[in-house]
């Protein structure tokens, strides 16, 4: 079932075109990957999909309703945005950061009730962050912080998670952990969209991929359709080796193509 769809998206900043005629959709139960070289417009597309920015042209629909018509509170409950490099400024405890995820359900006169506390507990359990619930989030490692931010989103019980490069600076252990949580989340009536640089991770965890280049949609479809050596050479400018070993798919960049203009 179509959860979020975008058609004919144009977007620019200060007269510079960033996205050009993009079509996109994600269905329930899917983990969709957004890939492409730096500056392709992936993060911008993600921000448009979360509703915090509006496209210059085109429409975004959430469960059939136009995104612009949905109240910010309803949007907050349905769409979860994990920003790139998410960090807390003030040194909150981990539990408090995760608790922020319950804001879309709270009234100004009521802070936290039992239901809130239960959801927070559950979110920390899934992300295995219960062990440091009382630690100060700014003292954690990068991987641990990302898990806490993810827990915050899980506490909101969003149906659709939109994550911008969540694993960029993480070690392999945490990379896999984060992707596993997103994969697990994208089931049933829920889904997730992830912006990734690591093509192997994208290949391994995503159901479908969208390949962006210079603000245009270069290719979209299943992993094997999009991740061909040809596509990668054309868009990224590198010769690569694509290998499928049963469940694991790996993409290994070998060599830069000399006359490629990024």
């Amino acid at each position, binding site marked *: 079932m179509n959860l979020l769809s975008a058609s004919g998206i144009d977007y620019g900043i200060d007269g510079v075109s960033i996205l050009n005629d993009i079509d996109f959709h994600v269905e329930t139960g899917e983990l969709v990957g957004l890939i492409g070289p730096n500056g392709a417009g992936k993060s911008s597309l993600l*921000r448009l999909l*979360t*509703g*915090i920015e509006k496209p210059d042209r085109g429409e975004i629909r959430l469960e059939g309703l136009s995104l612009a018509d949905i109240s*910010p*509170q309803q*949007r*907050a*409950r349905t*769409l*979860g*945005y994990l*920003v790139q490099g*998410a*960090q*807390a*400024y*003030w*040194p*909150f*405890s981990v539990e*408090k*950061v995760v608790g*922020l*995820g319950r*804001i*879309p359900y*709270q009234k*100004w006169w009521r*802070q*936290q009730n039992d239901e809130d506390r239960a959801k927070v507990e559950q979110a920390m359990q899934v992300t295995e962050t219960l062990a440091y619930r*009382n630690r*100060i989030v700014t003292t954690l490692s990068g991987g641990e912080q990302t898990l806490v*931010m993810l827990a*915050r989103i899980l506490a*909101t019980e969003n149906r659709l998670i939109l994550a911008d490069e969540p694993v960029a600076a993480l070690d392999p252990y945490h990379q896999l952990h984060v992707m596993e949580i997103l994969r697990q989340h994208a089931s049933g009536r829920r889904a997730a969209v992830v912006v990734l640089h690591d093509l192997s991770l994208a290949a391994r965890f995503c159901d479908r991929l969208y390949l962006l280049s210079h603000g245009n949609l270069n290719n979209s479809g299943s992993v094997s359709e999009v991740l061909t050596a040809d596509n990668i050479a054309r868009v990224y400018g590198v010769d690569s080796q694509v290998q499928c070993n049963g469940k694991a798919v790996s993409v290994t960049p070998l060599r830069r193509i000399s006359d490629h203009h990024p």
Partner: protein
Amino acid sequence: MILQTNDSRLLNAVLLVALLLVLMLAVSNGAVDIDLGKAIGDAWHRQASVESLIFFDIRLPRALLAALVGATLGLAGAALQGLLRNPLAEPGIIGVSNGAALGAVLVFYYGYSAYAWFVLPVAGLTGALLAVLCIFILVGQSRSIITLILAGVAINAIGGALIALALNFAESPYAMQEILFWLLGSVANRSFREVQIALPFMLLGWVMMLYCGRFLNALTLGEDTAKSLGFDVARLRLVLVLGVAASVGAAVSVAGNIGFIGLVVPHLVRPFVGYEPRRLMLASALVGAILLLLADLAVQSLSGTTEMKLGVITSLVGAPFFLLLILKSRNTLQ
């Protein structure tokens, strides 16, 4: 050491009791020794005696104003630090207080404040708002703490110069000497009249700032995350800024620019509220009121024949504190 409590009800209750005690201390002290029992008794029986006049018409409004102004400055400091995510932000440092003083000076010394009771606090509000506008223009999109402080230095310098200019051209020959009041602040000789004209705007400002509490909490994760949590960042930023301008504008218009309360108080309180901006605000208001009352007590006991300005005490404590803060966070200030 950060206190891991989840609500501030106990803390606020304790602070409220402390505030009431300090208020009682403040009205029991003054230039003249009076019998408090007689003062209250006479007032109760509507007998205007020397004691009741001193207690109710001189000491009480002075203490109330000190508490209200202290609360405003503490609250505004906490609000600004939360909004700007800058531990050095406060109305004095970023130039908002001087802006308010300029507005007040222009209407007070040129006769406009006599037209209606609200002219003076509204002028303070307008001056404060203009200062904030200039700060936002100067700082732009920069998240750097240093940039904000520098912008504040510039606005303070311009504001101070314009205040001096306005006082110089004022009709009254006393005007120029009174620059000390506007730049350092004082609650001496203030009556219930001053409390009445400032209170409505202070209350309005407090409500507006407190309303933004949860928004400030969410803001710790960045503006984009706050937006995704359903907050209209632009609107709430405006509400908070207006709240700061209204309350600080009113406070400065009757008590002058009392510095450093908005800087010191949130720092003292933060560890006790788990660094949460929302809980910080009310607690900072209470502590701000307590501190300013204590400072006013110090002023009254240290003064000779000419009364020392309140800002002298707050600066003596606040400026070294400011230095310590800078030293402590030298590495993180970029």
